[in-house]
């Protein structure tokens, strides 16, 4: 198979290596790719830019044969093709290094490469692959211990194994999904030099990233995606960082913002929070902020910059390594467990709706009433009084317009995203909390459901709660924020008043100031 790949006619420089037309891909009723066109020329490095969730990985997974598109056409070196599995992609000379590496942790580097590149019998394969790997490593200037277990190698080393793996398989269309997210600047520079080397000998490289500077300085062309659509393809000379930011985050007209009428005293004060995760990665580097009664504080930023960890620290799921959290009237609350914090008036809408916020196998009533059960509102330790519980749940379902509930005994897992979220909000707001932490509460919701969620957040603010809204969606931030913080690399790097223009915020988000 790799033989077949190598015997393909030499690619003509500048001719299209890959052409995608009208690619559409849906997951359930969510449209991840909407009629996307994309083309890649031989010998070029093509950057694919876009926010998290724009559809970059999905588009590239279609090329790699991992996702079957609903419809659309693909041509490779001018020939129409059907890619129905990773095997097909490999035969066409397509190799992808995934955002989450496809490596077997318990195998050695050599075994991982062999798994991908069988060459004759097992013995032959072992020697052939070892030689080929040594060659590839030489050419790329990599040094990798082929006999080390994969899970003992550092992340950049794992990445090198992935690249060698696809090059040995004869890939000439090389797709790299956010390769530099895991590299230091120095490593990234070497990495780009190696990729340029590959492009110069006629290969083509897709570089998926959300770092503008990389796209501008290393790519021959740039394509921007947003919301599952291709927005624009341009040469780096034709665009600058500002234009790209705008293309990436969009300039949709903002619905009417409704700023707070009265902002009160600070309710929650956070200072110097630091957190290193179990894998030794520093996630929070001194987060300081305060939340006032009657305001919505929006934390903007690209996902994965410490937002999840901040929420976990604030809600007591993970105690921070350093720093303190104060709740007005209760003093220091750092490190208190979630149930204590809840009783002090802190509510949370986690980003993982079905995983963290709801127990899908339990009924709507049980999901709604769990807080009340713990507080003893529906009976004591020995028995739960189901009737008042069901009645309270039914009332909340009506008030918060949770649709698709046939009975309070229906499983919560069957609710659609928007309705599941409304149920979570109904529960979280039922105790009239003084602080609300909401993490991407409208992610994946349609416009109507998102508007309903926004309405509930505003209502909470108007009854003097302090709301911390963490969002990657700038439209949402601009719509709701009374104050805006921008989070990047585990810090709050900038704060703006509500109504600041999106370009300024966008710039702070991508770190191009």
């Amino acid at each position, binding site marked *: 198979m790799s033989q077949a790949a190598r015997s393909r006619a030499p690619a003509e420089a500048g001719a299209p290596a890959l052409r995608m037309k009208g690619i559409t891909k849906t*997951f359930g009723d969510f449209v991840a790719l909407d009629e996307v066109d994309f083309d890649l020329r031989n010998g070029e490095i093509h950057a694919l830019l876009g926010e998290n969730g724009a559809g970059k990985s999905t588009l590239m997974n279609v090329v*790699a044969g*991992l*996702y*079957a598109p609903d419809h659309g056409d693909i041509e490779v070196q001018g020939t129409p093709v059907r890619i129905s*599995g*990773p*095997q097909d992609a*490999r035969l066409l000379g397509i190799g*992808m290094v*995934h955002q989450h*590496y*496809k*490596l*077997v*942790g*318990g*195998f050695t580097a050599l*075994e*991982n490469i*062999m*798994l*991908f590149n*069988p060459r004759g019998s*097992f*013995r032959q*394969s072992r020697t052939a692959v070892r030689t080929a790997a040594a060659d590839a490593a030489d050419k790329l200037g990599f040094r990798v211990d082929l006999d080390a277990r994969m899970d003992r190698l550092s992340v950049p080393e794992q990445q090198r194994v992935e690249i060698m793996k696809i090059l040995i398989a004869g890939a000439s269309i090389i797709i790299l999904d956010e390769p530099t997210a895991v590299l230091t600047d120095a490593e990234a520079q070497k990495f780009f030099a190696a990729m340029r080397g590959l492009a110069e000998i006629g290969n083509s490289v897709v570089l998926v990233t959300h770092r503008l500077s990389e796209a501008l300085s290393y790519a021959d062309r740039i394509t921007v995606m947003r919301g599952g659509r291709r927005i624009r393809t341009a040469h780096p000379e034709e665009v600058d960082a500002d234009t790209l930011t705008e293309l990436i985050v969009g300039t949709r007209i903002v619905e009417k913002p409704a700023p707070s009428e009265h902002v009160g005293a600070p309710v929650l004060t956070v200072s110097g929070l630091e957190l290193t995760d179990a894998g030794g990665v520093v996630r929070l580097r001194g987060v300081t902020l305060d939340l006032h009664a009657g305001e919505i504080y929006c934390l903007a930023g690209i996902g994965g910059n410490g937002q999840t960890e901040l929420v976990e620290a604030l809600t007591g799921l993970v105690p921070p390594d350093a720093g303190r959290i104060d709740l007005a009237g209760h003093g220091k609350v750092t490190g208190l467990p979630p149930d204590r914090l809840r009783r002090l008036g802190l509510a949370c809408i986690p980003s993982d709706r079905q995983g963290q916020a709801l127990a899908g196998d339990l009924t709507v009533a049980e999901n709604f009433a769990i807080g009340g059960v713990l507080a003893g509102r529906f009976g004591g330790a020995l028995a739960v009084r189901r009737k008042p519980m069901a009645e309270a749940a039914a009332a909340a379902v009506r008030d918060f317009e949770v649709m698709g509930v046939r009975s309070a005994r229906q499983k919560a897992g069957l609710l659609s995203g928007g309705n599941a979220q409304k149920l979570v909000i109904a529960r979280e707001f039922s105790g009239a909390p003084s602080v609300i932490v909401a993490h991407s509460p409208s992610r994946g919701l349609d416009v109507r459901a998102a508007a309903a969620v926004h309405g509930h957040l505003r209502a909470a603010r108007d009854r003097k709660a302090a709301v911390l809204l963490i969002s990657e969606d700038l439209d949402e931030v601009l719509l709701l924020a009374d104050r805006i913080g921008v989070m990047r690399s585990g810090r709050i790097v900038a704060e703006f008043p509500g109504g600041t223009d999106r370009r300024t915020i966008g710039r702070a988000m991508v770190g191009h100031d």
Partner: protein
Amino acid sequence: MDFLFNWLANIPPFAVPYALAALGLMICEKSGVLNLGAEGFLLVGALAGVGAILSAGASPAAALGIAMLATAALSLLFAVMVIALRVNQVISGLAIVFLAQGLTSLLGRTQGWTSRSFSGMPRIEIPWLSDLPWVGRILFSQDPVFYLTLVLIVFAAWALRNTHVGMRLRSVGENPEAADAAGIPVALYRFGAVVLGAALMGLAGGYLTVVISNIWVDNITGGRGWIVIALVIFARWQPLAALAGAVLFGGIEAVIPRLAATGFWVPQHFLLMLPYLLTLGVMVWSSLARRGRGGGPAALGDPFLREERR
């Protein structure tokens, strides 16, 4: 001295079912499919062997073959449930046990197989080697399945590390996403592993009746399937270690009747309890020693579907 010798010479037939069943279970689990149905597969194999002899007049060897086929057939049901339909693997495994218990007991009675004895499989005395003192009787005058078991275990240990198929099988159980991206047909490998593994468990079950007991009674496997599940954990999914574990459990089982015969007084029920106590001990020890499922396939119990988010 006599006691020791007698005991050692009797370990192999007791160890064989453990070793075969552990190997079968291990092959299944190497592919990432958690199989709690072992007890059920053993039972079906045990009954099928008896049925083949009593109703079809099959030779012992043929009866063992039929035991393998019967379990393989039952495993198709399990495979479809956990691989194609992606039913919870724990529940599916337990369902297989209950199904097999009911089915074997019913068939045994309605077909008139229960409590009827028959003649089993003769031993093979390997010429020359069996005349060696000590080892001759312990190792070289056993039944053919004993030798087959040794060959299978050594072959499996080698093949898992040194063949494409072995490596792919392991990759499917370690990281099905990676295996899939490498173009390996994940579902096919899992299907094959389930069926092959079940056939070996069927051989183990058939061995219990066709070679050892020469009779069928309800639940004749006596929980060996559950012990095997512990054994595989204890052996960290390594065939050679499983062989050692099988000898350990076989040794305990072999000592029970012999201890009683020497007149050395130990409460009978305590002796019978020993294998299960040891199982408990092994489980406690292995969870203390390496917390969690050390050595096990990383994706054990996880269904796989290409486009599904996890």
